[in-house]
């Protein structure tokens, strides 16, 4: 029964991916003609089949909801702010007379449980000031930081809170 449900949600994920790829294709091709649609559908189908074992099922991602959509908007807003901050910080470091960096590796606890959210969080960490995610698993994230204080800023920071709020949005 459980296996059946998992298969069911996987099929739903595959369908969702297929539809979004077709829409992506149609938006990128400037005109809609039947040959464009057929080639697009065939290409999307191949991509979905090729990536079938990489798809996230229901247990690995947050279910879609209005509350979740709002939480996701908060994440996007905070990530954009972090990207701008990170870049100005890097400009200061790189164009400074001396490179004032003290690179080190560190671990931060993994606040999330679902695989899709974990990978999104790892991506967001790479875009936050002075930090780069190296390895991700269920309990920790290995991070490379240009200065030790950047690592401390990451722990329980606004970005982590936003992701935790997003993960809890479907409960």
């Amino acid at each position, binding site marked *: 029964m459980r296996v059946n449900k998992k298969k069911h949600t996987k099929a739903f994920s595959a369908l969702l991916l297929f539809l979004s790829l077709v829409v992506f294709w149609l938006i990128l091709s400037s005109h809609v003609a039947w040959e464009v649609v057929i080639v697009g559908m065939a290409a999307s189908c191949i991509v979905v089949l090729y990536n079938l074992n990489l798809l996230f099922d229901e247990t690995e991602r947050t279910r879609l909801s209005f509350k979740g959509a709002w939480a996701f908007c908060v994440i996007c807003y905070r990530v954009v702010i972090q990207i701008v901050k990170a870049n100005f910080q890097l400009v200061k470091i790189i164009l400074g007379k001396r490179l004032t960096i003290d690179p080190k590796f560190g671990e931060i606890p993994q606040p999330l449980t679902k695989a899709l959210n974990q990978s999104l969080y790892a991506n967001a960490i790479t875009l936050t000031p002075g930090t780069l995610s190296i390895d991700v698993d269920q309990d920790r994230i290995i991070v490379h930081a*240009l200065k030790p204080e950047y690592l401390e800023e990451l722990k329980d920071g606004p970005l982590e809170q936003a992701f935790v709020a997003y993960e809890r949005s479907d409960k």
Partner: protein
Amino acid sequence: MWTIIRDICVVVFLLGGAFFYFVGVVGLIRMPDVFSRIHATSKCDTMGAGLIFIGMIIWQGFTMVSLNILIVLIFVWLTNPTAAHYIAKSEYMRRQDKPKSLDEAGD
């Protein structure tokens, strides 16, 4: 009048994007090791591409083409950190797994 303001905005965004790409390249040369270099390239590329694409969207106005550019922008922002993550992870694992001697490998 509006076209002049639009043109100025476009130039500011394009120059800003080019500046961040420039900083990324300088960082690539100046930083001491692989990981620090990835910091420079991944972040500055993201911001540079973002500014240049926003400049192009303003230039185009709200048309189908600008929707295309927006989608490409989202694609770049998603794939850029992922690529950086993979380069960093492979280098990290290469340093972790030092090559075994033939005797150890046979055990």
